[in-house]
């Protein structure tokens, strides 16, 4: 079994959780104490390079790189920034990091708030805006105004690279919907047919939806899964419509189809996990009824199982953000989530049972599982 490492980004710094057997975990850190860490990702192409998206108070955003799991860090010489223009935008924070295609080992993508797309071709040292999106004539329509974003700023996230074609890219925005490009980001079009936006007069608009997390499985790259503000959706074919894959509400009316994150199985493209949260009245965004449960489907969303063994079932008001639910690559797969109350929970048996492996951390923004070389 390879070492499993969890990369934990929080509102107050970066921590590592390390384990050789996924039973005993060692917490290392903090690094960047006091800095806001939005996302930390190990490059799956070399399993050595770590990229970290941060901002510090009001000092603006940046990206740091490490080649030794955080032993040493180097800041990007040119962090993600919008093109300079009269009345132009400035990046508030870098929110999302995605490694490029396997055939482009130095390429990375970053998504920001306000919504922008950036690309690096040198391993994250220098970043340039992707003009095809940031300056797209429809961008203002797609992104909406400030009021359309999440409370701490509209996000561009879920940047996906089709493993069949490095020029085929996806991105999603809260709010704005999901978009794809077939020409390496030169042009984009909305791909939201079938995704509900029940907060609008037209509940099925061309764009404007609020995807929270969109994932693509490399073993079945024509399919996308989506955890949305309004439910769970799956799209099975290039150019196809999205299907509603929400589980039925429970007997007492509790909905389980609302949350932020969505994790896919490392090998089985039909298995996925979500973390349901309360979306009644003012959208409390905590475990419904104070019962912490994970939702798993083994058949691509046709049916779902609620998993709570080991998770607190009373007075547990957990919130899990969209980068804070993930799976590792082991057999059986490990599943992990981090909470805004600073706990990391782990399952080494695909969600059947759960253990808390870290607590008392700051508000967790991101948990990514990795197996370093």
């Amino acid at each position, binding site marked *: 079994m390879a070492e499993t490492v969890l990369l934990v980004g929080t509102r107050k710094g970066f921590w590592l959780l390390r384990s050789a057997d996924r039973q005993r975990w060692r917490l290392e850190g903090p690094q960047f104490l006091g800095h806001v860490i939005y996302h930390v990702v190990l490059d799956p192409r070399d399993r050595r390079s770590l990229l970290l998206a941060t901002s*510090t*108070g*009001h*000092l*603006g955003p*940046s990206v740091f790189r490490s080649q030794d799991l955080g032993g040493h860090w180097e*800041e990007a*010489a040119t*962090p993600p*920034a*919008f*093109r*300079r*223009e009269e009345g*132009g*935008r*400035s*990046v508030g924070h870098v929110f999302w990091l995605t490694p490029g295609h396997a055939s482009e080992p130095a390429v990375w993508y970053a998504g920001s708030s306000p919504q922008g797309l950036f690309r690096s071709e040198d391993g994250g040292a220098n970043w340039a805006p992707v003009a095809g999106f940031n300056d797209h004539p429809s961008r203002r329509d797609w992104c909406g105004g400030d009021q359309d974003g999440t409370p701490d700023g509209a996000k561009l996230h879920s940047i996906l690279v089709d493993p069949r074609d490095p020029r085929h890219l996806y991105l999603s925005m809260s709010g704005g919907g999901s978009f794809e490009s077939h020409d390496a980001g030169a042009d984009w079009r909305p791909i939201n047919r079938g995704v509900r936006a029940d907060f609008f007069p037209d509940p099925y608009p061309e764009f404007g939806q609020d995807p929270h997390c969109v994932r693509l499985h490399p073993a079945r790259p024509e399919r996308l899964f989506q955890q949305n503000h309004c439910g769970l959706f799956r799209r099975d074919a290039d150019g196809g419509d999205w299907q509603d894959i929400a589980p039925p509400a429970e007997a007492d009316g509790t909905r389980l189809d609302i949350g932020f994150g969505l994790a896919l199985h490392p090998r089985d493209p039909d298995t996925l996990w979500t973390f349901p949260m309360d979306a009644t009245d003012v959208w409390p965004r905590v475990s419904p009824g104070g019962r912490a449960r994970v939702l798993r489907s083994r058949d691509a969303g046709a049916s779902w199982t609620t998993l709570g063994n080991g998770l607190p079932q009373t007075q547990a008001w957990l919130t899990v953000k969209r980068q804070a639910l993930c799976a590792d690559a082991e057999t059986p797969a490990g599943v992990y989530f981090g909470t805004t109350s600073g706990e990391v929970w782990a399952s080494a048996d695909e969600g059947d049972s759960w253990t808390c492996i870290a607590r008392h951390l700051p508000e967790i923004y991101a948990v990514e599982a990795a197996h370093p070389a």
Partner: protein
Amino acid sequence: MRVTVRLPTHLDLYTGGERTLSLTLAPGACLRDALAGVEARHPGLRFRIVDEQGAIRRHIKIFVGNAVATGLAQPLAEGETVMVVAALSGG
């Protein structure tokens, strides 16, 4: 002309803890030139103070002497002290 730039602790990551910099600038230099001098000594620091549109970041104030600078074009005088103040607030 010589000016002194005083930096907050927030920027120790860039300066290694050096919080007072003495810069030699051309006669008639402005605040923008002082920040360029700081950037030359500590690469990456300027972008923490000024965003990509050339605006002083929100919640950062730059004092020239005892007055808040109105913009990066503000001229500096011989012996002037420039002080960068960064707010960090909230829990």
